[in-house]
């Protein structure tokens, strides 16, 4: 026992160890503070938080869970990208491979999909929680606006992923969704005032979404690029702003 403690002490006194871990782990207030501020991942948090804010029944962890599920989706999504090719002749076969051939592919694909649904649910209930606790009130008005934009982006992330399996479910769901786009006033070819700008089936907003007049190879590629690159970058940028504003607007909301 003494030998082990001796070895641990020797190890933690080496230059290599000290260059990696900047502070000790003895339970002192100083170390608790350092644990937060000297760690790049944890310094998203303030060193101290109001006591009411760590109660589960105040936040229900909903914002944190939403972010965590986003990270989960990023990791599983990148793994899925190793196997999936957004080509109409291959996409469906790749899905079948994931379900029956790729080791753990079924769990990977299934949990990515359920996590996508879960994120839509947690983000909606996070909004409800923020509303019910009045957390959008001054000085946090703008962060609520950012939150609404992130809600939209969450919907769009999930929606663009829907087409990727290239099965009947996704194909016809995207058909329903993009046909609504065709009905946009002025900018959709079936919407009111479409004649104003000479909008036709081959130059309206639906055409821009699908990359054609019907759902085909370009639509699959567009959905893929938006899903894997475009929207995650925009959502990531807004998340940085959203979290930063939580800190800058006075930390988590609390009784005045």
């Amino acid at each position: 026992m003494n030998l082990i403690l001796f070895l641990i002490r020797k190890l933690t006194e080496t230059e290599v160890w000290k260059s990696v871990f900047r502070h000790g782990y003895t339970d002192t207030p100083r170390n608790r503070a350092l644990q937060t501020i000297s760690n790049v991942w944890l310094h998203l948090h303030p060193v101290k938080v109001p006591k009411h804010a760590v109660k589960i029944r105040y936040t229900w962890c909903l914002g944190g869970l939403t972010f965590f599920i986003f990270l989960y989706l990023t990791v599983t999504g990148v793994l899925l990208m190793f196997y999936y090719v957004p080509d109409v002749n291959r996409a469906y076969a790749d899905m079948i491979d994931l379900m029956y051939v790729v080791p753990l592919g079924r769990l990977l694909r299934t949990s990515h999909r359920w996590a996508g649904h879960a994120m839509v649910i947690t983000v909606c209930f996070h909004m409800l929680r923020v509303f019910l606790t009045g957390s959008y009130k001054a000085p946090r008005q703008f962060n609520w606006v950012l939150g609404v934009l992130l809600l939209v982006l969450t919907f769009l992330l999930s929606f663009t992923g829907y087409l990727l399996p290239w099965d009947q479910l996704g194909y016809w769901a995207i058909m329903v969704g993009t046909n609504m786009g065709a009905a946009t006033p002025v900018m959709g070819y079936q919407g009111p005032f479409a004649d104003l700008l000479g909008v036709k089936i081959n130059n309206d907003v639906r055409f821009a979404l699908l990359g054609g007049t019907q759902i085909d190879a370009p639509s699959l590629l567009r959905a893929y690029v938006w899903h894997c690159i475009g929207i995650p970058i925009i959502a990531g940028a807004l998340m940085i702003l959203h979290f930063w504003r939580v800190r800058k607007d006075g930390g988590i909301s609390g009784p005045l």
Partner: protein
Amino acid sequence: MSNHAEAQVANNKKTEKVFSWPNLVAKEFIAAILCTVILLVYSYYVDAPLRELANPGEPENPAKAPWYFLGLQEILVYFDPWIAGVIVPSIILVGLMAIPYIDVNPKGNGGYCFRDRRFAITVFLFGFIFWYALIVVGTYMRGPFWSFFWPWETWSFDFPTPPPSVSLPNWLGIPALLIYFGLGMLVPAVAFWKFAKQLGFIRYNITMMLLLLMLGMLIKMALRLMFNVKYVLQTPWFNI
């Protein structure tokens, strides 16, 4: 202790702070682990849906959007696509973003309290439940050709005869709309004068317009369900 000192103590208690490490971080860590476990266990037992290869020649019946858009697809029954698919979601989003700027009530920041914010919480909860109620109908009660079925009924694939629909003639529809929005704006301003004055002219108008639009949707749905009313306003360019 004097009253002042008591207030001081209460105030300190409210802003009492604890270290994030480990009080907050530990809870986040547990939440993340639980979330992962639930996701993996659920995914192990319930497969994600995967239907046949996409076939443009063979439409799904019913073809449904992802569940979170089914509320919008459901109101396609009651409104033309440009309203259901574009105008309604746009107004919802703009309305949501406007909330912090039109709700000037400083009370209720940082806790669950209905008493201080009756109007705001009632309206928001109504909208929230409305959105999800429509999703439930769209998900579980709409079958082939978007016909209505109770969850315990078996779907039939017969094309339903569309009910005879009537539209309000414009001499009735236009005054009805004017009266609805006119009275809707005026009556609360008089009946709840203090509330309206607190909001100010612009905030009051935006708030009431958003509220009237939301309730108007419900009224139009009721008119359709009870009297088969198709449109309340017809113009050469669009119908509502």
